[in-house]
């Protein structure tokens, strides 16, 4: 296969004037980016270790710290999928699709109840969610198409991240200062 590809590249270079790629030590073919006909970037997501559930703060539902005896709340809230680390938006999009992650969840507060609070302390009404947390790595892969041949190449950069996927469990609570 290597021999065939090398011959193909040599013929191509003579015929179409593109430069000859070299085989890298790890077996991948290093194709000069500017000299190929078509090029695509794709991503491959890998999970690292096992996932776990974690309760995380989402937002405050009241605007300031006050000495309140009770709160009432009845507006819907939502929580979104998020990533830590330095994944690009395209990488996040790919990870979401490949792992089938839920983008966001909406939580409705249809029942009107009075929420007691300790009036001797300053407090705010807050909202937490239970998230599925998973460490992932995303490989960037460049696929080059030269005539009828396709060559895929893993770019050295692999980005590590943790995703936080909202689950259906959520908590309404009073947070004290």
């Amino acid at each position: 296969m290597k021999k065939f590809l090398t011959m193909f590249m040599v013929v191509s270079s003579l015929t179409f004037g593109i430069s000859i790629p070299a085989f890298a030590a790890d077996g991948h073919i290093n194709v000069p980016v500017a000299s190929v006909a078509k090029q695509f970037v794709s991503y491959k997501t890998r999970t690292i270790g096992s996932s776990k559930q974690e309760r995380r703060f989402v937002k405050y539902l009241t605007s300031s710290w006050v000495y309140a005896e009770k709160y009432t709340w009845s507006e819907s809230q939502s929580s979104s999928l998020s990533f830590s680390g330095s994944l690009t938006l395209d990488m996040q999009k790919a990870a979401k699709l490949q792992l089938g992650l839920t983008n966001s969840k909406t939580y409705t507060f249809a029942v009107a109840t009075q929420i007691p609070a300790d009036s001797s302390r300053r407090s705010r009404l807050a909202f937490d969610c239970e998230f599925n947390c998973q460490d992932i790595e995303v490989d960037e892969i460049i696929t080059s198409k030269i005539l009828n041949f396709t060559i895929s190449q893993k770019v050295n950069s692999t980005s590590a991240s943790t995703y936080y996927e909202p689950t259906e469990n959520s908590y309404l609570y009073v947070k004290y200062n």
Partner: protein
Amino acid sequence: MRNKKSTILYSTLVILSSILIFYLLISRNTISKIHFIQFESYVAAPEKSQYTIDLVYFVNKFQKDIIEDKNIDKIELKNAEDVLNISNFSIIKGENTNKYSIKTLSLEIDFLFTSIKKVQYVNIYFTDGTKESFKIGQWIFDINSIPIEGNHLSIGDKYPFMSKFFDGCIVSVNNTSQSDIFIKSINIDLPNIKFLDLDKSIEIKKGSSFNTRVIPDGTYNKYNFYFIKPKIVYSIGEVEYTFYPYGIHYGLLNLTEDAIKNEINKTK
């Protein structure tokens, strides 16, 4: 010919509109059946104290709701009238679904004497002299003797008021005293669920917090409706105290049409 067609069409529209208006008027005057959520609940409290309990119910939004402030003379919790006095009540309107209005009957309860009471019905006495009993699930009220004044623990940051479903009771407290505290027990006595006792006392250093999830022992439906107001027994040195945190609602967050239908079927 065209005039005749128009007259027929016009007459049909008038008749249909009249039938619809008549139907709506009849519906508005029809009294809706009341469906209270069937909670499994445990409420621990010291005697001579007061706490507000919320009973959530569903009524057909196209029909008349008889539970209105002006119609109600008195409310009692059946078989616990001597221990649990309802000193005040209010009706709070929640959201509407396609068919139902979600409402809350909020009861301010005085816990009069030390006792353990099992309650399954709320009795509503109306101003016209009638009385109706509504099934509200299974509630255990555990009224204890007045504790020695402690004020050593406060509600912690992770203590929820409301949670989507039940997968153990979250307890979160802060030690606000100047001493180390030992948690000796966290009592939750739900009607159909047993909880594991603490293996040993848990120490909370002064100024520290303690967060735990008290896990049920055995099977249970995490999507049922629960209300839990636990009792925490702790000691400082040789002296024992009791702390009664707020109650936690499980199941009320994110109520779906299916969950409402399922709940309504229990009291049909």
